[in-house]
């Protein structure tokens, strides 16, 4: 097992979790993810358990984002597979969904019985506001931690404006901006590699 080696974003995971830990970690992410699991996923995977560095996690999430389906759900498949193959992917995915599904079953039963939402509206309003702030705060945190080149930051801001303000359909945003982002990133990598001539070593 690789011991907690602090590396600047490259290579395989910082610390390989066991199968049970993988399941429990994702179960925690799912069960606590009120208002969305994104902030929890980052908190548990990057900060609390240090399975991946900020940059590694961001790369996985980036791929999860351009695929259909929930970005963290897709990330759970990829992270699980990376650590423990098919078993890992299944464990991570089941962990992520098991808690919420149990709660949803209870809520559905209540809804069937009373035909109305549980009377927790003011509490949920407060939670919804907090959850919105959580998501914005997480985006800021990731954005600043990644130290991306300026052109890439511009692509990110463009994606944000298009989605939040202009309400462009997300698939369209992805189709247009993904090639642009990849192109900028590749070009930037080539330039910095030329400057320093000591770029990242590929792992065997």
């Amino acid at each position: 097992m690789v011991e907690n080696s602090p590396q600047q974003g490259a290579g395989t995971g910082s610390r390989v979790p066991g199968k049970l830990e993988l399941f429990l970690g994702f179960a925690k992410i799912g069960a606590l993810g009120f208002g969305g699991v994104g902030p929890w996923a980052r908190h548990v995977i990057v900060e609390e358990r240090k399975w991946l560095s900020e940059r590694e996690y961001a790369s996985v999430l980036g791929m999860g984002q351009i695929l259909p389906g929930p970005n963290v759900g897709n990330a759970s498949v990829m992270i699980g597979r990376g650590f423990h193959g098919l078993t890992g992917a299944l464990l991570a995915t089941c962990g992520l969904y098991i808690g919420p599904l149990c709660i949803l079953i209870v809520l559905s039963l209540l809804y069937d019985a009373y035909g109305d939402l549980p009377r927790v509206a003011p509490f949920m309003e407060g939670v919804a506001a907090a959850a919105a702030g959580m998501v914005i705060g997480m985006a800021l945190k990731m954005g600043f931690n990644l130290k991306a080149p300026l052109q890439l930051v511009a692509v990110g801001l463009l994606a944000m404006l298009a989605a939040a303000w202009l309400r462009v359909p997300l698939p369209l945003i992805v189709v247009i901006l993904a090639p642009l982002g990849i192109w900028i990133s590749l070009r930037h990598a080539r330039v910095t590699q030329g400057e320093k001539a000591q770029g990242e070593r590929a792992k065997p």
Partner: protein
Amino acid sequence: MILLGQILIAFGTLSFLAIGGAIAILPEMHRLLVDVHHWMDDATFSQLFALAQAAPGPNILAASVMGWHIAGPAGMMAATLGMLVPAACLAWIMAGLTIRLRGNTWMKPAQFGLVPIAVGLIAASGLVMAQAAGTSWLSFVIIGASTVFIWRTKYSPLWVLAGGGLLGLALL
């Protein structure tokens, strides 16, 4: 049995459209469940979606609640599997591809090119959520405080959720 098959197919189709998660496919989900299949009326659809929001987890699980409403536990299972399995398969293939291409020097920069888009879209969904949740001055205070707390500290997000909920209970 036919109904379960229909549920599976309806949500399986939605699954492929869900780039950006549940919010992105909400209009299409509404069209399929309410207008095409007549499985529920407009008000029920909105209530079920709100119900799903009250639970933790990826909000794509709204599909599970809808499935339950249409056909009970089996319906929930069909809707959940329809929603999750196609996306999970694609993610599996994508993971395999990145593992295979790991040795290439261009792989990491190429992957990194997608990151700002992900972060930008996450920020956008936060802003859209804030717009929906910002019903009073207090909710804007909660949104602002929560943003700064998550951005600037490493404490568990649980504090933010509990604090927001309690403030809402006390003052809203």
